[in-house]
């Protein structure tokens, strides 16, 4: 650097202008920040160590399960006996923890953390109860209705029979799990044939998310109360299955009619008025009988 050129510190001082932090305030900020960052892990580690002394964890077949606490993080590193067995480069490479193990450790550490367990319900209460915001699993609808996010996304998203959707599904399937058939139509027809060969009839009953029966509770822009929103591929999926000889029982029309005529809830409410169950298994008995009775009639 030449002598006439300003150092980065000097440039920064000029850029800062008149912004000043008093020494006492600076010390308080540093103390609060360090306490916020360092106290939770110290407490957590102390608790984990104490817990391990009183009740050592049972050996688990899955290595990653033992990594939920910081004291166990040392198991990410190879034991001395494994070091002694190293003869080749491949042996040495085998000592390096995999990215999967590291990720698992990080997830477990967060999930089992005292800070997470203590704060998460409060944060959830503030975000959902006060700010009416959703999260990774939830959309906050109107009148306090909650919607299961993946279910809504599956209805509003691209058609599940399109090649692009299926390719995307293949691409995003985890490295550690296999997905033999991304096309649900082909999979179901194949399953139907296998069952038919054994004399068993397959009846497909598409499950309905709340957004299909109560779209007006999700958005005020849904004005057609009679319509049942479905994924763009659903119609084609249903007709293709029927063409292939598969029995399909789609309860959406029955439930929509019931909601329209009686005004009754077609989903069970849980204890808290805002918490609604998502799955059709929670249909009230009346709805279940409406759905199943026609099938039982002679």
């Amino acid at each position, binding site marked *: 650097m030449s002598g006439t050129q300003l150092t980065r510190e000097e440039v920064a001082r000029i850029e800062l202008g008149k912004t000043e932090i008093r*020494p006492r305030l600076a*010390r308080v*900020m540093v103390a609060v920040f360090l306490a916020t960052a360092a106290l939770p892990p110290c407490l957590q580690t102390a608790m984990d160590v104490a817990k391990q002394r009183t009740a050592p964890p049972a050996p688990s077949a899955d290595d990653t399960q033992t990594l939920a606490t910081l004291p166990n993080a040392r198991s990410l590193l190879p034991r001395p006996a494994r070091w002694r067995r190293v003869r080749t480069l491949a042996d040495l490479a085998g000592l390096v923890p995999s*990215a999967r193990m590291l990720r698992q450790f990080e997830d477990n550490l*967060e999930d089992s953390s005292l800070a997470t367990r203590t704060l998460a319900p409060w944060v959830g209460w503030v975000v959902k109860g006060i700010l009416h915001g959703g999260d990774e699993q939830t959309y906050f609808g109107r009148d306090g209705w909650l919607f299961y996010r993946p279910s809504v*996304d599956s209805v509003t998203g691209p058609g599940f029979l399109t090649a692009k959707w299926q390719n995307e599904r293949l691409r995003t399937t985890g490295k550690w799990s296999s997905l033999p058939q991304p096309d649900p139509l082909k999979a179901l027809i194949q399953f139907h044939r296998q069952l038919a060969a054994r004399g068993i009839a397959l009846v497909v009953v598409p499950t309905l998310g709340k957004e299909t029966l109560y779209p007006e509770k999700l958005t005020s822009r849904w004005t057609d109360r009679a319509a049942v929103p479905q994924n763009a591929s659903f119609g084609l999926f249903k007709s293709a299955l029927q063409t292939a000889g598969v029995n399909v029982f789609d309860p959406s029309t029955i439930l929509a009619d019931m909601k329209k005529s009686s005004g009754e809830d077609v989903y069970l409410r849980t204890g808290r008025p805002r918490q609604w169950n998502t799955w059709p298994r929670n249909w009230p008995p009346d709805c279940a009988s409406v759905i199943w009775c026609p099938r039982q009639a002679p």
Partner: protein
Amino acid sequence: MVFSSHLFFFYFLPLVLLVYYASPQRLRHLGLTVFSYAFYGWANPWFVLLMLATTLIDYLCGLWMAGGFRRGEVPLLPTERARSKGQKIALALTVVSHLALLGFFKYFNFAIENYNSLIQTLGLYSWQWDTALRVTLPLGISFYTFQSMSYTIDVYRGDARAIRNFIDFACFVSMFPQLVAGPIIRFSEVADQLRFRTHTAEKFARGIAIFSVGLAKKILLANPCGKVADTVFAAAPASTTDSWYGLGAYSFQIYFDFSAYSDMAIGLGLMMGFMFAKNFDSPYQSASITEFWRRWHISLSTWLRDYLHIPLGGNRHGTARTYANLAIVMLLDGLWHGAAWTFVIWGAIHGGMLVLERLRGKTSYYEKLPLAARARMHRPVVDFPGSYGNPGLQPVHLFYLLSRQRRRPRLGRARRAHVAVLGKNS
């Protein structure tokens, strides 16, 4: 490991700060380097070998160029004197090795896909390269490659003195605050700080403030905006209004996300006594695309200006060459952001717009509008939707369309999104 993660904030950061401040002065860079490698290796432990190899190459070539293998202080190369053949070879070695690694890791998959598509189109199916090999992109390679290259280029030009202490150099390349998402720190900016820097409570407190602002930006603004954008872009088909809403949300997401990481990096640097230059300067208040690029990702823009645009000739060889240089730089800028044709188009449109503004003397074609309106041309979402009668007719929205391109690496999807935004999908 990301800055907003539980592991980073509650375990990694306190441990780094403890070790850093508990260590004697001469061991601080070693500690910081070890932690930075651990931070980097957390994504994939094997990637640290790659970073170590490139660091070694640059370190040795830097010393070779400056004649630093001899005893005594490493000399600063005189700027006016021609370079020897050995110095040129050393520079070429580092630049070629970096670009080769970046090219392989970042563009191999893209090249194979395009090759196969071309071969399919030509009907030469037997010529397809049906390989199972797919390259995983090492985290932050685009950033630390540029950062590391700046060292050897600065040494070659005589703008910086080569560094003899390998630990200091490894610390500069691998420093975890800016390793994976920038800003791209140039060696000449931190060379003096690597030798000496102050550590004060005031500096630390400023670091805390900037880090906290970045963390809040990321969690409270960028993530919610991202969720809105995700929902809209996952919808099929999205209405024109929804598309604009998603586009706006995405525009804010990328700004808040990117600037949040820069803020956190600057804040973390300050906690350890480093002063990095700011990377964003309210870019959405820019009154032209030219100004926008002076305010957005400043460290990349200045890197491209100093190490690509000026060596290409800058604006010293006539009007046509200036425009061509601008276009080339922006094309490469686009390609640097990602390996997909959408990024190339993104770069081409930006290059085109910069050329258009250069034709008018670096002013926007809507310069006669009042300042407030000019700024708003670059942030349609702020005034959305009232002030935009026909968004398709306002080329400034191209920026947002381009942003959209960056989100959707598939050309077809990006096209569909544009059609929706322009209200032509019904």
